[in-house]
């Protein structure tokens, strides 16, 4: 599994996680290069279809990153997002995909360090889990 | 309870605006002798503002104050508690209230007697007077001897030339300050 390079998608809220990723950049914090960020206006925007689509296409892991709870630029989007993520996790486990492949994180727009930490943390998690069962199924 | 009496008297005689106090307790927490004081410094100020002369004059604190001015230096309301304590000491002596720590006024008095007599302090003399008055002969005997051996305490008194002037100054003080018994 040594050269397994997971494909990870991060749905990042423009106001916090995306901003934090920029801060990590200007501080030159180095982190795992596997993550691909998709910018969304608010973590509350994520919907089950988009996330499930990502797994279907072959993502090994997906996470949603929104503002700290209570900090949402749009008041409560991140709380809704968390609920939605929890719901999709249930669907995933019913589909036989480890629910840990999907996660919700909260961070503030200034936390460049946390952004890098999350990227590393989640990448490590997915590396441990190995390629997505969807993908493995594909190659069979 | 007339709250203004004592505080205004103190203001008139010492210039201290004790009523400015907002009970922050800085004075008490910084006071070097607070560990031995019965009333803490801020309590003294409060009791002044509450017009409680009775309790104040009986306290140890007014005698214990080392006049170090730590409280004054740091009081955000610029109150000099040491001056208040001095005033209360004099008041206690003037009113004939038995000092809660009797040795301290005796020490002050012995010292001043020496000054009044000689114009300067004569250590052996005033310490002797103090010890006789307070019956503390044995205390610090060893130290006293060391001091004498090192010629730190002279055994014979000396007097300044114009000692009369000093006597007059003391006389004026008795006349000016309403606290005659204190001297």
């Amino acid at each position: 599994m040594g050269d397994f390079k997971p494909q990870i998608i991060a749905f990042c809220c423009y106001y916090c996680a995306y901003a934090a990723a920029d801060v990590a950049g200007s501080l030159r914090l180095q982190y795992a290069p596997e993550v691909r960020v998709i910018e969304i206006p608010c973590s509350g925007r994520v919907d089950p279809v988009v996330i499930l689509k990502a797994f279907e296409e072959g993502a090994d892991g997906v996470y949603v990153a929104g503002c700290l709870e209570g900090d949402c630029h749009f008041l409560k989007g991140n709380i809704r997002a968390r609920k939605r993520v929890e719901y999709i996790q249930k669907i995933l486990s019913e589909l036989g995909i480890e629910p840990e492949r999907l996660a919700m994180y909260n961070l503030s727009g200034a936390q460049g360090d946390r952004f890098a930490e999350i990227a590393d943390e989640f990448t490590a998690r997915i590396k441990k889990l190995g390629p997505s069962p969807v993908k493995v199924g594909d190659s069979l | 309870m007339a709250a203004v009496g004592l505080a205004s008297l103190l203001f008139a005689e010492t210039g201290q605006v004790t009523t400015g106090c907002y009970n922050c307790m800085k004075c008490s927490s910084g006071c070097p002798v607070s560990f031995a004081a019965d009333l803490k410094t801020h309590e003294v100020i409060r009791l002044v503002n509450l017009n409680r002369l009775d309790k104040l004059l009986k306290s140890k604190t007014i005698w214990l104050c080392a006049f170090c001015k730590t409280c004054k230096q740091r009081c955000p309301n610029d109150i000099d508690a040491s001056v208040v304590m001095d005033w209360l000491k004099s008041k206690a002596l003037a009113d004939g209230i038995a000092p809660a720590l009797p040795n301290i006024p005796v020490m002050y008095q012995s010292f001043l007697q020496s000054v009044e007599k000689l114009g300067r302090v004569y250590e052996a003399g005033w310490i002797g007077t103090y010890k006789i008055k307070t019956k503390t002969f044995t205390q610090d005997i060893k130290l006293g001897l060391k001091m004498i051996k090192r010629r730190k305490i002279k055994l014979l008194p000396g007097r300044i030339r114009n000692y009369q002037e000093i006597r007059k100054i003391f006389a004026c003080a008795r006349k000016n300050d309403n606290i005659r018994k204190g001297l």
Partner: protein
Amino acid sequence: MPVLVRMTISGRGCDGVKYSYYPGCSLCSTASEYNLSSEAICARLGIELQEIPDWNCCGATSAHSASAYLSVALPLRNLILAESMGLDMVVPCAACYHWQRVAHREVVEGTPVGRKANEELTEVMGRGYKGTLQIKHIMEVILQQQVLDLLPEKVVTPLAGLKLAAYYGCLMLRPAEVVAFDDPEQPQSIDNLAKALGAETVRWSAKVDCCGGSFTLAESGVVGKLTADIVSAARRGGAAAIVTACPLCQANLDTRQKENEVQMPVFYITELVGVALGMPEARRWFRKHIVDPVPLLEELGLL
């Protein structure tokens, strides 16, 4: 510390710097070494001190407790005497310095007590105080630039290796509006002078703590605790000795150390100036100490 060149005894001095000198009672008794060292170093540095003739006790630690009037009137007499000498006043004792300055201020600001005292002294002495004097602590005099400039050539024994806790006490710095020649909370003057002599000073927090002042007799317990705290703070700061500029502080710290602990010498800053200037009479001053500083100085090769 610049490299010091040993100079002949008759070096350049601060010619023309002249003061009236008020030793005060302590310096004539318990703190005689302070007096001796002050006079000696000033002479060496070319600072001329003329003792105020017939000076009297300033009332120091006691007068104020009995009478606010007295605490002003007693020092005022000295001010009048000094003013007629036409020389600014130098005072080594912190308490005397404090009270002389208080009296000066009361008169200059025309407070009721100040006015009254000046009026009555005018009657008693035939002249009053005009308020023209500057009253300086001896530290201030030594820390003048022209004196400091002299030090490099005058210092023959830099106090290398001597770790000192500079102790200021209360009355030299408080209240700030009366006696301010240094920061009242984090003073540096003794430190600076000690450093200029080649010594090292430690960082510690008891610099301006009270030693109990005149209570040594009446409340020796209180003084014992306060001095013990100060000495132990100095020790924790890494100091080998304490240096002060106040006879009360020196006396309390020198005499009230706990018997069961290693004793810490307590210097007057002027004594250390004397050592650094290579004055042989320093040994005589040290004989007057309760805690003998000579072993420490000898160990460091300073004596």
